[in-house]
């Protein structure tokens, strides 16, 4: 029991203090917000609010979700700084960008 508690405490301590979570809505064939700046280590979650499936696909295939039906979500943790442009592989007019800063 003691070891399990210790493991949990260690796990909590190993999580960086600046880790954040951000949500992006997919609504009316748009990513909202379209452009977003986050700190390294941020977990971004896209949620599809449309009645039509969408995907989240990084232009250089860094990440690529499957088809997200209504209310489905996809998350990605950004561990490296840089600019990540992405689009919906079904409706490529839908584009967005994540800027990851140190």
């Amino acid at each position: 029991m003691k070891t399990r508690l210790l493991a949990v405490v260690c796990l909590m301590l190993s999580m960086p203090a600046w880790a954040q979570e951000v949500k992006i809505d997919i609504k009316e064939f748009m990513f909202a917000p379209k452009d977003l700046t986050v700190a390294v280590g941020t977990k971004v979650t896209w949620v599809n609010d449309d009645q039509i499936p969408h995907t989240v696909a990084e232009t250089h295939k860094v990440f690529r979700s499957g088809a997200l039906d209504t209310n489905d979500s996809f998350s990605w943790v950004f561990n490296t700084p840089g600019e990540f442009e992405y689009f919906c592989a079904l409706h490529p007019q839908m584009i967005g960008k994540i800027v990851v800063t140190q």
Partner: protein
Amino acid sequence: MDIQSKHPLRTDDLLNPDRRTLLKCSAWAGAGVIWALSGGIPRAFALDEAGNVADPKALASTFHFVQISDSHIGFNKEANPEPAKTLQVAIDKVIALPKPPSLILHTGDITHLSKPEEFDTAAQLLKGLPSTVHYVPGEHDTLDEGGGKLYLERYGKGTKGNGWYSFDDHGVHFIALVNVFNFQAGHEATLGADQLAWLADDLRAVTTSTPIVVFTHIPLWTIYQPWGWGTEDGDQAIAMLRKYGSVTVLNGHIHQVIQKVEGNITFHTARGTAYPQPAPGVAPAPGPMTVAADQLRNYLGITDVRATQGDHPLALIDSTLV
């Protein structure tokens, strides 16, 4: 017959009386429009309230086929909780035609999410159609993990690339094009260089007097760029088709009837059997349009295409599921 037949290469414009008739007819597509291609020149005929054509010449056909589109089996939202039911109504409508069609084209989005069970349900229902069905995939048919593997396993036998092919029936050359793969950020759909090269090769053996029917899911010409309703390299395919006397391009994807005539080429998109979508640009987004449940079948439908052998006119007749 009329002034156009003396100038078969003239492109349409607003001074063209047939073009004017067409525009007038398009305005009330809810009841239906028929138009015949005579020697490659489209002529529009109005349908009356009962869906009948006043000019019997337009219907004197020896060969006809049907286009079904956008079944979206698996969709279950407010715009149509039961697309399997409305697909069945469409199938019943085809069965009820006075003469069975020679063949049937399904212009894609058979399923909504490309799930195996959605393909199964669709296949089970479409088996009830009275003629062979020729398919092209919609982008909703490529959502499986394999990115279209399930569609191609089922419908891709004997096709090239991602499912394109051609065949001949009753003297008409049918070309199935695929434009729902390899989407690129910020761009419209594409056919791709491989498919365009195949098309050029395929057309080599087709004489210019042969009527051609091209069918593909996303409109081959740009209807509305902000919604991605177009094919970026569609122009290259259309350029190859310009020298032919009678070309009919049939699409789905936008769940409504929109048509255009350009020279000898007739472009036509069909209604779907699942749910309507807004007219280009009139809504913030192209998502499903919810209408009153008792009105839904006015927005869904099938297209019947008739051809008379000899002088090769094709007539397109859209009818709703009412």
